[in-house]
């Protein structure tokens, strides 16, 4: 019998099964079988996810939180129990659909993309592990489960980014990604420990429904300082957000994401669209009532998001590596989602439009970003380089790809009626309604920038003269397995906004808030037009610079003789170098060296000294044994005197 619970199990178990079968048995022997298994099982899980979603949203009773299944994992003290369960509410159902669908697409795509690779089986296994862990994260019913799968997401991304482990760049990139996110996760864990200690439970239901008043009186000793439990909760919320901060690659922990390009392109696409980076946003969305209660942290969230949004967009304008451009665009879009969540705060009150907008943007962004990466992948597959220098003039050679990429780029630039328009528009609206005018301006600016760099990429890649011998010679063709997912993804990229809008506005609320809700919202019907206008303007500039008949493409692609400012931006504000300096020089060269020196010289030195001292005493004893009889006789006499005076006899 097929009911929601079995479907829920299916959604989980299919990817896990794929991982186990491919990883342990099939993987190395038969790549084709591995691919087949992966696609079929992921298809099943995607299908069941869609079924669940349909059944959930079409069910007669109003959509609400439901726990499909839940069992105890590890009990701690009385109420503090770690459980593994499956939580179903609009947000998680939406994410289930997105994750399973995207991973199905990517799996299909990988059949074509990884055809030449000798470790195809391992690739499919890890890909399924990746989606499995993301699914577990999405349906988590409590912080502990979320952290478990959170870590699994991190490690599987590590394995996938470093998939070509013979490439030093890939290895170091994967290490960087894992360690940076791990660094953030350590704060996340600390936050979990702190919050669970104060609240006494991991469950979202408990944490999301508490209010700070009972905690104001009691204090807690955090070692460094003593603070009231209410403040401790605020601190905890910030710590928990730090986890999402690193996972979603918000500034300044953003550098791992562009470097993660070293992995195979399908990996980048799934990381950027569905599985990894949105986890951070999802975390904040999932715990939104809690953050709303600890409302100070929302401000931080907003500013972090907003800054990353602009920062990444600026960098994206100058890059030449198409995957890097896409990566920075992802950063910028994540910034949108993040600050939308933060922007819900108005003074002490909290509105939920931003939350809806943010989740909506997660939804739409997944599709077009995934398809963009797949497109980039197929381009790279043709010209064997990431560099825009080598592209251009591909429009004729790859018509389907061309059309799909146009759709996705229009979507991301927020041109109606493509999907991106709706979600981004809602976000900007939320910023405006939240009276955060600076952020609002930044958002408008960034939407222009987005349009600019996306079309820069578009024009440089598809228009103009071919700059690559292969392309010139016409060795370029479209691979079915790679083009099919692109085409399929173009549909939601086009329509998801249009169709989803109503759904999201109907169902999507973060749940009951314990913060005062702001009722009267300013009317702003002009915002969409403003946004679209800016986008069109930016499009025009891009066309003028890169596609118009008198555009100087060579000049555009030349990174050398430029202004200093351009160079700084082109080198990503030298952030990689700064990180390198800090880690190498300060951590490894400084702290680690000092601590090792302490161990080797102080501790071992004391040991060596005591040994030396004992040996000296031994030498003393043996020098007394000079074989000199009068001395020996003397010791007899002296001995009597010694014990006479020190023998403590009552003489």
């Amino acid at each position: 019998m097929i009911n929601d619970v079995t479907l829920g199990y299916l959604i989980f178990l299919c990817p896990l099964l794929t991982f186990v079968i491919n990883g342990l048995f099939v993987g190395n022997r038969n790549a084709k079988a591995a691919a087949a298994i992966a696609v079929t099982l992921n298809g099943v899980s995607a299908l069941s996810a869609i079924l669940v979603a349909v059944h959930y949203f079409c069910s007669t009773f109003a959509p609400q939180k439901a726990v499909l299944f839940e069992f105890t994992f590890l009990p701690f003290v009385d109420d503090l129990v770690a459980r593994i369960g499956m939580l179903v509410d609009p947000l998680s159902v939406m994410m289930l659909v997105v994750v399973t669908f995207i991973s199905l697409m990517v799996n299909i795509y990988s059949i074509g993309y990884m055809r030449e690779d000798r470790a195809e089986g391992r690739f499919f296994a890890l890909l399924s592990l990746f989606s499995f862990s993301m699914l577990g994260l999405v349906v988590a019913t409590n912080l502990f489960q979320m952290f478990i799968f959170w870590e699994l997401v991190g490690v599987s991304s590590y394995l996938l980014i470093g998939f070509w482990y013979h490439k030093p760049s890939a290895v170091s990139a994967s290490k960087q990604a894992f360690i940076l996110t791990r660094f953030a996760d350590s704060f996340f864990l600390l936050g979990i420990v702190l919050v669970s200690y104060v609240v006494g439970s991991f469950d979202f239901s408990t944490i999301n429904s508490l209010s700070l008043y009972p905690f104001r009186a009691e204090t807690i000793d955090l070692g460094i300082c003593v603070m009231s439990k209410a403040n401790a909760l605020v601190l905890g919320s910030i710590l928990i957000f730090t986890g999402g901060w690193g996972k979603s690659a918000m500034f300044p922990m953003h550098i791992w994401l562009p470097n993660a390009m070293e992995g195979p392109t399908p990996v980048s696409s799934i990381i950027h669209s569905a599985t990894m980076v949105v986890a951070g946003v999802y975390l904040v969305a999932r715990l939104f009532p809690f953050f709303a209660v600890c409302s100070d942290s929302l401000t931080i969230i907003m500013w972090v998001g907003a800054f990353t949004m602009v920062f990444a967009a600026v960098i994206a304008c100058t890059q030449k590596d198409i995957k890097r451009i896409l990566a920075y665009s992802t950063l910028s879009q994540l910034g949108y989602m993040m600050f939308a969540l933060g922007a819900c705060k108005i003074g002490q009150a909290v509105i939920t439009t931003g939350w809806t907008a943010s989740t909506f943007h997660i939804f739409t962004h997944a599709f077009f970003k995934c398809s963009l990466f797949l497109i980039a992948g197929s381009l790279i597959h043709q010209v064997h380089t990431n560099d825009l220098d080598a592209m251009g003039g591909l429009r004729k050679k790859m018509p389907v790809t061309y059309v799909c990429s146009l759709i996705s780029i229009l979507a991301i630039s927020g041109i109606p009626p493509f999907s991106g328009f709706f979600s981004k528009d809602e976000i900007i609206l939320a910023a405006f309604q939240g009276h955060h005018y600076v952020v609002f301006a930044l958002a408008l600016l960034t939407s222009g920038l987005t349009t600019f760099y996306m079309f820069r990429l578009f024009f440089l890649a598809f228009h103009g003269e071919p700059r690559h011998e292969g392309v010139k010679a016409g060795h370029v063709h479209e691979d079915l397995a790679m083009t099919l997912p692109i085409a399929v993804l173009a549909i939601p990229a086009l329509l998801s906004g249009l169709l989803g809008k109503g759904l999201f506005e109907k169902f999507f609320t973060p749940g009951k808030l314990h913060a005062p809700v702001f009722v009267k919202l300013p009317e702003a019907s002009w915002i969409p037009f403003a946004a679209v206008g800016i986008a069109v303007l930016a499009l025009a500039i891009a066309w003028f610079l890169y596609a118009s008949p008198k555009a100087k493409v060579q000049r555009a692609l030349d990174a050398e003789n430029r202004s200093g400012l351009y160079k700084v931006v082109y080198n990503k504000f030298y952030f990689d170098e700064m990180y390198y300096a800090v880690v190498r020089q300060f951590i490894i060269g400084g702290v680690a060296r000092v601590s090792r020196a302490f161990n080797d010289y102080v501790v071992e030195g004391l040991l060596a000294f005591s040994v030396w001292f004992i040996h000296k005493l031994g030498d003393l004893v043996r020098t007394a044994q000079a074989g000199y009889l009068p001395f020996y006789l003397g010791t007899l006499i002296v001995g009597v005197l010694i014990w006479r005076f020190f023998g403590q006899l009552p003489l």
Partner: protein
Amino acid sequence: MYSFFNMNFIIPDILLLLFPFIVIGSRLFCNYRSQLPWRIANFGFIAIFILLNFIPLASGEGRFFICNWKIDDFGVLMREVLIVSAILGIWLSKDYFEHGADGKPQMHQIAEFIGAIAFATFGGVTVVSACDLLTFFLGLEIATIPMYALTAWNKKDQLGSEAATKYILMGSVATAFELFGFSYLYGFAGSLHFGEIQQAIATGTSPLLWVAVLFLFCGIGFKLTLFPFYTWAPDVYEGAPTPVTAVLSVTSKATAIAFLVVLVFGPLAPVQEQIAPLIALLAGTTLFVGNLGALKQSRLRRFMAYSSIAQAGYIMVALLGPASTAKTAIVYYLFVYAVSNYLAFFIFGIIGHHREETFASLRGLSKQNPSLAVALAISMFSLAGIPPLAGFFGKFHLFFSGASTGHYALVAFAVLNNVLALYYYIQLIKSAWVDEPDGHLSPLRLTRRQRGVIIALSISVVALGFLPFLSNNVFAGFSF
């Protein structure tokens, strides 16, 4: 006198007294290369040992032979220890009468040698069965004087004679101290009999008594190699022939410690608390100094000298406990110590028969003769007090007795010194197990006797400790 007519418990002592005369006398009836004295010696000692085991234990106050020859459980067990030591000693010495070893010439006059050992043993017996100062003193002298002679047994070996000179000169000085102490004790109590001395002390003390105690401890401190009276030991142990060193390190130590036990738990019992600090200090300093001295030794017998100095210190710890515990501990430890020590000396002897007795000549033992290396490791670990070997349980007894009167600090100090001890015993094991053999080491050959003894001793070292029926047998019913 109540048991004047069943004197069978005295038979072993009488035999032991007659025994050396028989052995030496047997020389008159055979030529000098005959095995007769050796056979008689073996038979005699073993017979005496067996007879001793027939004496029933747990007989309370002990039994008297003409009123000042007391035989109690402690005495019997000490007799057993001494006889065992003597048997092992003559077995060890046998080879040295067939060919020389360790650069020393071959030894002669086995009969007299055995006789001397027997006399020394009898001296020890006299000490443990004395009831008055005179017998006590005589026993000590009978136990000591043959040792002087034994040390110098190799007339041709000038190290031996030098060692003997040092030994006897210092020994006589120590005897003088001893006598001085005795004289003051006599002066204090006005009698030589232990019982009366004890009553006198119980009634009250005076400086005279303390001077006596001081001199007595200093005098016996020499024989027991306590700090700072141990200085003779390394030289004498090195100069003397190996079997004599072994006998010295076991028999004369056993005699000396028996002397102290009889003294402290006999006449001085009422003032045990007052002299406890002195005992503790002696113990602590002695074991520390002994361990320090042994750290960097390269010659085996000197090494064993320091190690036995340290062992003396450990034994002293037990003297702090109550009588029964202390006696149990000391007797048991002496058994264990004798066995482990003789095992080590047998191995060194075998080494010494083919090479010089240094650490260097142990190199590669584990490759040439693994079983010998294992036996060496066993004896060393036992001396270091590593369970489950007997040495650990022996030390445990000693510390148990010391701690039972709350001397935790001393016990802790002694236990920590065990680490030092372990260090130098491991040094020796290292040279036998780890160091690579350098080519020009003459190969080792074991006679049947040697192999048998080594196997027997190794087994007993392993088993004596943790097998309850071995370690409980005689001590279970210990009641003083």
